[in-house]
């Protein structure tokens, strides 16, 4: 299927994260610097060693709170001497920065790539309730390639799109709200063990059903929680990584496929693009879903996590509801511990890199009260609608 799987030559060698606050009193750049310096130090490197920078989506909309800091800004702030850098919204979802950074290393453009994701939507929301509305992606009339097909109908949030996926999944497969609730309940249980999580108080099924309906069938507790945070990691060429302090976490396989049209209303409405992403990732490795010790899967909205579980082959398509029923399978003691830091639903919407950060923390045995027993293989996946990518991570 693939005759070159370059990502096996790339390893994650360090991670860092700022406070996860709602909101933070620090600037977006300050949060970014803290995360990046922590990651560089954790990798046993200094600023002088970093010769590449990547992020998703970069500063693509006038520094707005969805992505206030891009590669150009951090490059200058940290005085980095780069051989390569890159960012941009158009890529396989929030993990695109990791994927691009891995490509830069594998092709020899860089040796140590800093990857980060900064988001300040808690501050953005405090300023204006519609700060993150999709209608703000364009000034005046909507000429964007795909939002123009949604904003005239008052789709102001991606929840309306995710809710339609949920409705279709419920219709096609008999998935129930009680089943879907297990994503939120499981994340909250795990968040209780994560000191940095935004919401840590216990949540019951009654609490879930008492939460406000936002867009049927999705409720407030199906939505991730805005925060201010920056997350960073260092990618290194594998031959360099062996001399660094942390046991290298190899990128064993990447999933970045999209076969359907790139549009929220044209993708498979009960799977999005998770099926093709999963097929690609598993075609680039000898490992199988049964080898995975923990899954950190995108929960911008709970229904997206369910589709990632199916798309990545942890259960058959349509079986996601039954797979997570009663929550034991995806709990810390289950077969597939899911979103062990509370995910974005309770941990905070660090948006993408938080999943990779948590996967590495688990693989390095640093997850404190939520630590799993010696995990070796983790999957991280992020994105919704036509945006999506996945990483299979292995600690050798």
């Amino acid at each position, binding site marked *: 299927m693939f005759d070159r799987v370059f990502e096996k030559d790339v390893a994650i060698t360090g991670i860092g994260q700022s406070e996860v606050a709602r909101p933070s009193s620090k600037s977006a750049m300050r949060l970014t610097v803290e995360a990046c310096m922590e990651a560089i130090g954790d990798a046993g490197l200094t600023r002088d060693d970093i010769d590449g920078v990547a992020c998703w989506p970069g500063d693509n909309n006038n520094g707005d709170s969805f992505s206030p800091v891009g590669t150009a800004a951090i490059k200058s702030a940290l005085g980095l001497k780069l051989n390569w850098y890159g960012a941009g919204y158009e890529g396989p979802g929030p993990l695109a920065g990791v994927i691009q950074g891995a490509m830069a290393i594998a092709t020899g453009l860089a040796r140590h790539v800093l990857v980060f994701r900064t988001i300040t939507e808690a501050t953005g929301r405090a300023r204006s309730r519609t700060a993150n509305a999709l209608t703000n992606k364009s000034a005046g*009339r909507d000429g964007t390639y795909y939002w123009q097909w949604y904003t005239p109908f008052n789709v102001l949030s991606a929840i309306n799109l995710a809710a339609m996926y949920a409705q279709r999944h419920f*219709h096609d497969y008999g998935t129930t709200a009680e089943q879907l609730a297990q994503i939120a309940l499981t994340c909250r249980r795990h968040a209780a063990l994560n000191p940095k999580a935004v919401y840590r108080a216990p949540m019951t099924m009654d609490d879930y059903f008492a939460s406000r309906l936002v867009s049927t069938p999705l409720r407030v507790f199906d939505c991730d929680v805005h925060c201010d945070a920056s997350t960073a990691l260092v990618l290194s060429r594998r031959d360099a990584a062996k001399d660094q302090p942390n046991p290298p976490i190899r990128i064993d396989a990447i999933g970045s496929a999209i076969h359907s049209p790139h549009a929220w209303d044209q993708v498979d409405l009960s799977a999005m693009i998770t099926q093709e992403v999963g097929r690609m990732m598993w075609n680039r490795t000898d490992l199988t879903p049964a080898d995975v010790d923990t899954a950190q899967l995108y929960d911008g909205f709970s229904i997206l996590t369910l589709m990632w579980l199916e798309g990545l082959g942890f259960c058959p398509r349509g079986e996601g509801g039954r797979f997570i029923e009663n929550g034991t399978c995806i709990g810390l003691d289950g077969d597939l511990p899911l979103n062990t830091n509370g995910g974005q639903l309770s941990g905070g919407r660090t948006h993408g890199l938080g999943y990779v950060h948590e996967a590495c923390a688990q693989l390095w045995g640093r997850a404190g009260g939520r630590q799993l027993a010696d995990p070796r293989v983790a999957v991280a996946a992020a994105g919704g609608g036509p945006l999506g990518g996945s990483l299979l991570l292995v600690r050798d």
Partner: protein
Amino acid sequence: MPRKLPLLNPENTAFWTGGADGELRIAHCDACGTLFHPPTPVCPACASLDVGHKPVSGRARVVTFTVNHQAWTPELAEPYVIAIVEIVEQAGVRFLTNIVGCPVDRVRIGMPVRVTFEPIDDVWIPLFVADE
């Protein structure tokens, strides 16, 4: 309800302004006969550049929907239905819209609907009403 309007361009004008003549106009390939959406100057099925648009019946079915309860702005306080509809002429040709003119709890997947237009400035927004 207030609506953000699309920026008209050579590809999307037929869709957004067909309502002036009471027509729902969908991109069409004159080479292979395929209808498609969103409109582009090349047929996604056969890559022909011989594409235009064609009026369709305006009848469709609800493929999926959601009732939005969040008042994103004060003008959006009342629940409204967002849906993806598929036109009856060709499976897979679908787009997002609002279902109007009926109680929000009446909408269901598979429900037959037909187009109606809401003119604002130079745009005729295609909305759908129950057709049963």
